[in-house]
């Protein structure tokens, strides 16, 4: 009998057609709509907690409130004071954890792989601003929240990490929440985007994270 590898499932049910890639059950749907929503849960999510000004903080380089892609294509998000969220392509978990483990820090550092404990959604398109304005009290204008901004706030009454991560000059946001709220967040955003013609796009590694360089 052939050996069967486990298949990971997002808390957000995939829109048909469904396929398996990267070890995850994902939607294979493609769209050409200007406003798109993608379940990016298959991305590796590493949560790092360390002192605000220690060795890990210096190595990660990104302060609270900002997000930046490093040279290996890992999106480093300064998600809280002394807290970072590292987003990496599927399968890069061990490598990403090891790189943080190697950093010397005088204070206690905690590194936790929350890939399967959280949900991650990406909204892309210029009208993402109007969509988010319906469900979040933050000012999404370029002056207040330019590309590379990260913050945690209430989105559709749910505590959510929001990262502005534009792709090829097109406005794009990543939204990160607890796994059990994933379907709710996805549905809320999809509903809010209905009037702007939002469409679901299946997970694609190359589109979920910006490429380095």
């Amino acid at each position, binding site marked *: 009998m052939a050996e069967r590898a486990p298949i990971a499932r997002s808390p957000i049910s995939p829109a048909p057609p469904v396929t398996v890639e990267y070890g995850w059950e994902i939607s294979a749907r493609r769209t050409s709509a200007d406003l798109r929503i993608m379940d990016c849960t298959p991305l590796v999510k590493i949560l790092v907690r360390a002192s605000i000004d220690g060795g890990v903080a210096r190595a990660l380089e990104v302060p*609270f409130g900002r997000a930046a892609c490093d040279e290996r294509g890992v999106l480093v998000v300064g998600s*809280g*004071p002394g807290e970072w969220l590292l987003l990496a392509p599927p399968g890069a978990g061990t490598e990403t954890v090891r790189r943080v483990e190697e950093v010397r820090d005088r204070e206690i550092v905690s590194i936790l792989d929350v890939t399967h404990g959280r949900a991650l959604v990406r909204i892309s398109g210029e009208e993402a601003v109007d969509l988010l304005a319906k469900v979040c*009290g933050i000012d999404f204008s370029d002056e207040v929240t330019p590309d590379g901004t990260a*913050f*945690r*706030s*209430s989105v559709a009454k749910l*505590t959510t990490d929001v990262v502005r991560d534009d792709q090829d000059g097109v406005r794009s946001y990543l939204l990160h929440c607890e796994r059990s709220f994933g379907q709710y967040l996805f549905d809320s955003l999809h509903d809010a985007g209905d009037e702007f013609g939002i469409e679901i796009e299946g997970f694609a590694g190359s589109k979920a994270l910006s490429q380095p360089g």
Partner: protein
Amino acid sequence: MILIPCPWCGPRNVSEFRYADEAKVRPDPNATTPERWRTYLYMRDNPAGWTTEKWFHRAGCRRYFTLERDTVSNAVRAAEASREV
């Protein structure tokens, strides 16, 4: 709506926060008397006017901080050294 000035996140809607008591110094449990400990746990000054409070940014940075609030008008202002609780 009350806008709470979080020292980490900036002004946010009060619904993102949790009130976490009047700001006061916790007595050393090994040196205090039962009366002082009980006062610390249960007694509040509850003034009409400006008071110094601890707040928790539940839906944001998840930090405790110090805030000044007028209990009559609900006006708020950042406390000095607001990041220290």
